[in-house]
């Protein structure tokens, strides 16, 4: 069905279609539409909606629900996500599946409410303490927000790991058409064997009690646990990288961008193509795991890369790691409060060409 949807509402509809059981959050702009929508709709569907007293409470409610094997979601915007980091570290330590949405705004500190992509580092480098990763998805259209929300539970449960969906406030607030009958924007998560639920704490009647913890005091036990997590992360890196290529076949210069920056970049790509400039775009969809080898393959042929972000340069570090010195990497970005523009980008590209 074709619907005109706001980004934040598309998340809600996707999460409901994906089988969400419970939602907990504390209000913050620019994602309050999510709470408002769920407050109205979830009780009608006999699902849990609870406005928490703080972000810390919200993420711990997610923790409690995830322990029981139910599908829990929380959403917030940058400062609120910072407050949740302790909980996210515990969720990863305990290997609990859940979905966390960050509708990013500008920081540091309280910043303001306009959109940004300043939480790339926070999302892809853990954010809390310890050696851990969350799977980070970066939609760039309202349709993708819907599809990612819908499939994110499968991804989280397949690996028993939190999934973060991050998009800037602009994408959260904008509206466009979502056609739920088309395949574009689907993650196509492969479930090749039944999802193991033999860890769920749902009452020990007729079975041995189970224990889920992130505290490992016995000699060697914690190191063992971390090696186990590493194996899982390696498997995710191998299987779950998602990236899209636009006009890269004959490109002499490549833009790398995600989310709203990728949309503005695409406009620049097609404008420049009309002028005869051979340019393409690589759009990482998973920010972790990052498409290092996919970018490296292209860097073997293309020697100029431009990273476009709504921050002062965060993903550029991953792009540099990916090209590993065999191509030049330039940057165009606007930090919190600013929005990248296709014309400024075009000027930047012409200046380095």
């Amino acid at each position: 069905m074709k619907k005109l949807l706001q980004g934040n509402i598309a998340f809600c509809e996707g999460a409901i279609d994906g089988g969400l059981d419970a939602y907990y959050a504390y209000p913050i702009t620019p994602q309050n539409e999510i709470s408002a929508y769920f407050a109205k709709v979830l009780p009608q569907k006999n699902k849990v909606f609870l406005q928490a007293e703080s972000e810390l409470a919200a993420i711990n409610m997610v923790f409690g629900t995830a322990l029981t094997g139910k599908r829990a979601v929380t959403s917030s915007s940058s400062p609120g996500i910072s407050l949740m980091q302790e909980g996210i570290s515990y969720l990863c330590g305990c290997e609990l599946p859940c979905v966390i949405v960050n509708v990013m705004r500008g920081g540091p500190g309280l910043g303001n409410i306009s959109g940004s992509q300043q939480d790339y580092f926070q999302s892809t480098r853990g954010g809390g303490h310890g050696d851990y990763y969350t799977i980070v998805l970066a939609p760039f259209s309202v349709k993708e927000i819907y599809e990612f929300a819908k499939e994110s539970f499968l991804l989280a449960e397949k690996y028993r790991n939190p999934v973060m969906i991050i998009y800037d406030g602009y994408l959260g607030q904008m509206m466009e058409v979502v056609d739920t009958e088309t395949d574009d924007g689907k993650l196509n998560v492969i479930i090749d064997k039944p999802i193991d639920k033999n860890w769920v704490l749902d009452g020990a009647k007729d079975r041995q009690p189970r224990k889920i913890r992130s505290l490992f005091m016995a000699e060697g036990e914690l190191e063992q646990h971390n090696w186990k997590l590493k194996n899982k992360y390696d498997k995710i890196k191998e299987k779950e990288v998602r990236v899209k290529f636009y006009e890269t076949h004959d490109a002499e210069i490549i833009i790398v961008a995600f989310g709203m920056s990728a949309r503005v970049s695409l406009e620049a790509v097609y404008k420049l193509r009309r002028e005869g400039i051979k340019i393409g775009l690589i759009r990482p969809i998973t920010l972790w795991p990052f498409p290092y080898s996919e970018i490296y393959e292209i860097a073997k042929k293309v020697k100029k890369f431009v990273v476009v972000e709504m921050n002062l340069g965060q993903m550029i570090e991953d792009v540099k790691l990916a090209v590993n010195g065999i191509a030049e990497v330039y940057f165009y970005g606007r930090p919190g409060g600013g929005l990248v523009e296709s014309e400024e980008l075009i000027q930047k590209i012409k200046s380095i060409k």
Partner: protein
Amino acid sequence: MYNEIFIAGSGGQGVLSLGRILVMSAVEENKYVTYYPSYGAEVRGGTANCMVKISDEPIYSPVIEHPTEMVIMNTPSYLKFIKKFLPQKILFLNTSLVEENEEITRLILTQIPQLEIIRVNATEIANKIGNILSSNMVMLGSIVQKLKIISVETVKTVLGKIFDEKILELNLQAFIKGMESLK
């Protein structure tokens, strides 16, 4: 067909609704659209704006850098946006609440000589009908009449979907008055 419409006014004048109705109508006619509201610290009385793109082709960026059309509902928005986003084709002004500045008019006409300025006495027309809140519907009528990118019937259908019966009649009337003001 490719229209980039920048709509600005005061919070409470219905500029966001105006944009949404345009977009909803365009969707009914199977066009590609994006709608992108400002959601800053604007409050009632402050400036509010939205960016509407309507096209026969897929739209990449929802951000407008050079609007083809611009709709200005009050003086603060006129002063704030007109030089920042030079409209390329048509400038709609709500003359009831926009105090035009000769120097600015001269300046934009030097830069965009082909610019057409459409002056609509939107707030006054709405007030005469008996509902000052529907000045946005008057402007909607003028836009639909002038641009001819969406059919009048489609817009009426959309209005029928979003307004309660109680206020539909008034808004339809405002919409029609806005169309007639250009005839």
